[in-house]
C-alpha cells in the first residue's frame, strides 16, 4: 500500500500539532516523527517581512514530484509538505515538512531530503521588505543549497 503524501500551498498559517496528529492518530506502527518548520527571520532587525511569490500552476505538482521521490526512497508511513505564500513577518512560519516512519533514520533523511529539494526545485521566490522602507531585493539562491541537494544524487 503506497503512502499518499499531503501537499498544500496556502497563504494561511499551519498548525504543527494538528498536522502531526493527522499522520499518527490511531496508528501503532509508527516509531519516528520528524518535523521541520522553516520560519521567517528578521536578519538582525533588517527586515519587516518576506514576500513569497510562487508559480501556482506548478508549485503543487513539483512538491508532489519531490514527495513521490522521498516515498520511493525511504520506507515512510506518512509525509506532509505545506508551503505558504504571500507576505510573511519575522517569527511566522513559512514551510512545514513532516516525515513519519517505523525507524528514525528514514524519517530524518526523508525530511532533510524534502527540504533540500523544496529549496532548490519548488517554484517559490523570496523578496525582502527592509525595515528602513527601501526597495527590497530578491533573495539570491545559495550555492550551499545546491550542494546540499546534490548529496542525495546517486
Amino acid at each position, binding site marked *: 500500500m503506497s503512502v499518499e503524501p499531503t501537499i498544500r500551498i496556502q497563504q494561511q498559517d499551519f498548525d504543527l500539532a494538528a498536522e502531526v496528529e493527522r499522520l499518527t492518530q490511531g496508528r501503532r506502527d509508527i516509531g519516528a516523527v520528524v518535523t521541520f518548520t*522553516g520560519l521567517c527571520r528578521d536578519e538582525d532587525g533588517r527586515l519587516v517581512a518576506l514576500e*513569497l*511569490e*510562487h*508559480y501556482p*500552476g*506548478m508549485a503543487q*505538482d*513539483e512538491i508532489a514530484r519531490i514527495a513521490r521521490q522521498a516515498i520511493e526512497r525511504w520506507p515512510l508511513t506518512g509525509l506532509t509538505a505545506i*508551503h505558504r505564500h504571500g507576505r510573511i513577518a519575522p517569527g511566522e512560519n*513559512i*514551510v512545514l515538512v513532516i516525515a513519519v516512519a517505523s525507524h528514525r533514520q528514514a524519517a530524518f533523511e526523508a525530511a532533510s531530503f524534502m*527540504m533540500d529539494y*523544496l*529549496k*532548490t*526545485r*519548488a*517554484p*517559490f*521566490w*523570496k*523578496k525582502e521588505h527592509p525595515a528602513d522602507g527601501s526597495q527590497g531585493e*530578491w*533573495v*539570491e*539562491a545559495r550555492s550551499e*543549497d545546491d550542494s546540499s541537494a546534490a548529496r542525495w544524487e546517486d
Partner: protein
Amino acid sequence: MKLVYFSWIREKLGMAEEDVTPPEHVGTVGELLDWLGSRSEAFEKVLEHDKVIRVAVDRVHIDDHATPIDGAQEIALFPPMTGG
C-alpha cells in the same frame, strides 16, 4: 503559446505573462530565448543573466536548452528558486 514570468524577471519585463506565436524556425527552448531577446530591449537585458535563468515547459523543469518546445502550452521563465 503562453509565457509566464516570475520574480525579478517579471519585474524587469513589467508583465507577469504574455501570449506569443514564435516563428517556424524556433524549435527549442534555447531558440525561444534567443528570439525573445531579439524582440525587446527589456528581454535582452534579462538575457544578460541567461546563465541563471530557469525554464519550465508545461510546468516541468527543463535543464537542457535543446529541449523541443513543439506543442508546449505554457513556458515559464524564472530565476533560481529561493523557497523553503
